């Protein structure tokens, strides 16, 4: 996948799906915390990308373009009535994405592995408490590992706004996850 021929990049759409589906699904799952919704929105994202493939000019990377589509889908989803219903039932539901079965590096001791899992769970719960913008910026920065300029391009915010959201998100997550002052 090169950036010189953006239209050619999308010519083999199956290859695009194969390469970027895990990343888009990861972003959606981290944003929404629901496996099924993340899968549905991943499909919607690639359908939108396929329908709008002629509009892709290569001004940004294909990954950024797809993430922007996914971000808009998350935004629409959060605004929809279905999501409001989901938010009501979410409190009574079990952990929608169970990350407790994540197996850390086997080289560490069992005690360390338990502590790692506990810390991951705390971060997961703290991220869930963030506002929509803070969560988006946090996930794009620390899960998708985007640069601040990329986040600004994807979200349509100013870089200073991105920094502001990220600063607040980090402070909240640090406080709630019990990380203390870094």
């Amino acid at each position, binding site marked *: 996948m090169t950036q010189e021929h953006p239209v050619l990049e999308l010519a083999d759409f199956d290859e695009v799906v194969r390469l970027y589906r895990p990343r888009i699904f*990861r972003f959606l799952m981290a944003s929404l915390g629901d496996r099924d919704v993340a899968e549905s929105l991943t499909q919607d994202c690639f359908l939108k990308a396929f329908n709008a493939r002629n509009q892709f000019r290569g001004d940004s990377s294909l990954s950024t373009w797809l993430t922007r589509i996914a971000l808009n889908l998350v935004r629409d989803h959060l605004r929809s009535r279905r999501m409001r219903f989901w938010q009501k039932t979410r409190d009574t539901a079990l952990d929608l994405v169970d*990350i407790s079965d994540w197996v850390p590096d086997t080289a560490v001791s069992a005690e360390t592995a338990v502590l790692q899992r506990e810390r991951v769970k705390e971060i997961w719960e703290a991220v869930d408490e963030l506002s929509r913008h803070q969560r988006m910026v946090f996930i794009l920065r620390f899960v998708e590992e985007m640069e601040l300029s990329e986040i600004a391009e994807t979200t349509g915010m100013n870089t200073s706004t991105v920094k502001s959201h990220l600063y607040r998100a980090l402070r909240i997550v640090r406080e709630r996850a019990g*990380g203390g002052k870094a």
Partner: protein
Amino acid sequence: MKSDMEYEALEPSGKFAESISDFRSAVTHVAGRETAQPVSADWLAPARHRHRKAQLKVGLGIAMGWACAAVLCFATLPLFTHPHHTAAAHVVTVSPAAANTESDSALLEQVDTNISESVPSSLEPLNELESWSSTSTNTSGDSPNGTPLNQTEKTNVSH
């Protein structure tokens, strides 16, 4: 100096950085597991179905909106048209009567003007006599010889 401080504020370090790194690993692990299976040929079929359904919903929404607007227009139409209609009817029914009244009164005035010409000075005594005659007729009826006085006088005047 300020940018370094900003960078430090935006880049976690120590145990907190490790926790975030583990969080990323966990999310990546779950996402990788969920997307491990290759997609089938009709993987996008549900998305297409949802897309068509959403388009249909939007179309129905627009149609319902127009239908509601049309019903509202038809329902409120009499409220806007009724006062004008009444006023018009009022004008149509009242105006001819007023016109007739005006024309009648004008005609009567014209007639009064035409018939109430001043009596020439030479006939002034007769006019006074006629006035007296009408008064006496009203009070006593006929003249002593059985002939109405005014008729006699009129005959004399005409001769």
